[in-house]
Structure formats: C-alpha cells, structure tokens
C-alpha cells in the first residue's frame, strides 16, 4: 500500500476556488451591508418598509415593494439593498464556477462518467440560477 494518499488535482482546484471565493463573498457582504444600513447608499425599499413587510408572504413583499424577480436586481445595483446581492450571488455562484472547471479536468483525464455528471450538475445549477423556472408563490 502507498505511504501517501494523493488528493486528486481537480479536487485541489475545486477547494482553492471555494476557499478564495467564499471569503471574498463574505468580505463583500460585510462591506455592502455597512454601506446599506449606514445610509451611505440609498436603498430601493426603505428600511422601515422592509421591517413591515418581512412578516408577510413573499408575494406581498415583492408586489408591494416593487422588488424585481430573477436577475432584475442587476439594474438596481446602485441601490444599497440590491448592492448586497453582489456578495450573495458570489456565494451562490461559486459551486457553478467549480463545476465548470471540473468538466475540462475530467475530459483531459478521459473520465467520461465524471465529465458527464459534472456537465449535468452544471446545467442543473445554470437552470436554477437562470430564473427561467418560476412559480406563482403564495
């Protein structure tokens, strides 16, 4: 038996992307949250209004506060509340980035089953992130 267990290279790459991306996301969230609640950047939905709406179902909040769905928040990046989504989206997008790096790594190793699984997972995440799927909510 080998005296050393080697961690697969693609696993190391995945770990490195997660490490730097996660801490960058957390750092961005703290900074943008400060800009938001300190009033340095004006919010799209007034703070008082949010605290009145957060007890209601999401449908009421979205409709009553004119909150954009899907990627509609991008056009509101100049507003304090929606600026916070930069860090949040970075956290949510990290796994997709990692999977996109896995596909060529597995193809290069001719590990076709893993390449296929990584591709399917990337497509699932793209579908979830796209906002194409929608529901009426309640």
């Amino acid at each position, binding site marked *: 038996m080998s005296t050393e267990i080697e961690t697969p290279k693609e*696993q190391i790459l995945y770990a490195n992307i997660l490490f730097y991306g996660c801490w960058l996301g957390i750092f961005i969230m703290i900074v943008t*949250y400060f800009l938001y*609640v300190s009033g340095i950047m004006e919010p799209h939905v007034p703070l*008082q209004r949010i605290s009145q709406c957060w007890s209601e179902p*999401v449908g009421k909040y979205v409709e009553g506060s004119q909150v954009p769905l899907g990627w509609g928040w991008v056009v509101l990046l100049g507003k304090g509340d929606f600026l916070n989504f930069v860090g949040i989206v970075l*956290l949510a997008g990290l796994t997709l980035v990692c999977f996109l790096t896995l596909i060529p790594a597995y193809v290069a190793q001719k590990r076709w089953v893993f390449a296929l699984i990584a591709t399917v997972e990337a497509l699932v995440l793209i579908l*979830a992130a796209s906002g194409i799927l929608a529901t009426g909510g309640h």
Partner: protein
Amino acid sequence: MRGWGRWLAAAGVFVLLGLGVGVEPSLAAECAETADGTPWWVWPLVLFVFCFVLGIIAVLAGVGGGVLYVPLVSGFFPFHLDFVRGAGLFVALAGALAAGPGLLRRNLASLRLALPVAVIASSCAIVGAFMGLALPTNVVQICLGGTIVFIAILLLMSKNVERPQVQEQDPVGLALGMSGAYQEYTGEFVQWKTHRTLPGLLLFILIGVMAGMFGLGAGWANVPVLNLLMGVPLKIAVGTSKFLLSITDTSAAWVYMNQGCVIPLMAIPSIVGLMLGSFVGVRILAVAKPKMIRYLVIGVLLFAGLRSLWKGLGL
C-alpha cells in the same frame, strides 16, 4: 479562550459599524419605528447576536446551522417562513462553502462520492423549493414541524458506525467510482468503498426535496444514508455531507433568491453571525462537554418542531 475576545470584538464592530451609524436624518425620522413600535434595526441586531450564539451551539452539538436556524427563527422571530427559508439556505450554504476547502484538501470529503449524489439531491432541491413556495404556508409549517421532531428523534436514536464493513462493492458504486482512501491521525491508511449504492442514491431524492422545501441543510439525513446505508466511513460521510450541502443548497438558494425570498437586511446578519459563532464554537469545542450540549440541542429541536406544528395548525 482568548480567541473569544477577538471574535466578539469583530462581531461588535460589524454590528456597530452597520447599525450604529444610522440612516440619513430625513429618512431616520420616517424609518424610526415599525407598525408595532419596534425600530427597524432591532431585529437584525437581535438576529445577529442570536445567530452568533447559534453558530457556537451548532458546532458543539455537531449539527449544521440551517437545521437550527429555520425552526428557531421562524418560530420566535417576526419573519415570514418564506424569508427564513431563503436566509436559512444561505446560512447552511455559507457554512458548507467555508468548510469545503479544508475537507477536500485533506481528502475528508470525496468529490467522486459527492458528484452523483449531488446531481440527484440538487435537482430535487429545486423541485422541493418550488413545492415549498407553492404550498400554503401553514402546510409547509406543519411539515417543517414534523420533520424537525423527526430529526430530533433521529439525532437521539441513530448510532453511526465509525467504519462500516463493506465486503464487496456493488456494480453501481463500482461504475461511479465511489471508493477512496484517507489517513487517520494515527497514520493508519483506511480504504473504503460503497455498497447498497442504488437505494442510497434514491434516498437522496427525498433528502433533496426536503432540503429545498424547508430551507434546511440536510446533513442530518446525508450522514446516516452515506454511513449506515452505503457503508462510507463516518469521517468521510460527515466531511462529504458537509461539502454536499454546498451543492444541494446552492440550487435551492437560487430558486428562493430569484423569487424575492432573500432580504439582505436579515439574511446577511444571519450568515455573518453564524459563521463568526462557528469559529468561536470550534475553539470552545476543546474545553466543552459536547454530549450534554447535544442533548440540549435535541431538546431545543423538539421544542422548536412542536412550536412549528402548533403554528401551522393555528393553535
């Protein structure tokens, strides 16, 4: 223990910087009070402190933050379940993303074990998220309550096996390359492989749906399935489960975010509070008595689950 001070100071600075400065004067007068007379900043501040403590307790009890966050915050805070589930997924996601690199580098999480499981769980988490958003709130609340009570009983009863005996790997596990090796602290090399892979993978359909529907991290379900059913050593099962949450919760988190269920004002104090609390928890772990805390958490989960059932039933 001196590390405590540093983390608490960091937490205080975050809260004071964020909430203490206040909004511009003209807006401040308008935003001073909510309908019930509570200033808007009170709940984010309370939530931050609560999540900080929750992060410590979660580490000591060996459970994920999400499984405590959703029932407790939905039961005792004024936020609607939609927003609690949205934030809960990001709480669980942030914890899993932070833990992932260390687990992967040390081979304590297996990417090859996680990949097939992740495809099933994350696809089903999307379905679960849509189901959770489409169903009436009281139905979700009742199901959540039932699930939390079940989790508490599972935590009490389940006896994980450190190194399950797998005589022969089944064809599905073999085809998917679900095997590996890790090194114990003693220097011993441990090789592992899976059995009963197909029923295990099928169970991840249910786990994914539940994770998406309730906004819970699903570590409480991942570990027993990987360890007791599929025969993965406990260390690898725990590590892979934690890493797996980063994939499962991502897909559901996107759905909740795209539907407007993520409110930064409450989500970010939750995420940051729980992460800071987790770091402190890891340091306390060396001197604490985790077994007693685990029983305490099981009691809290039972209470939160019953309260959720109570709320859902409108009693």
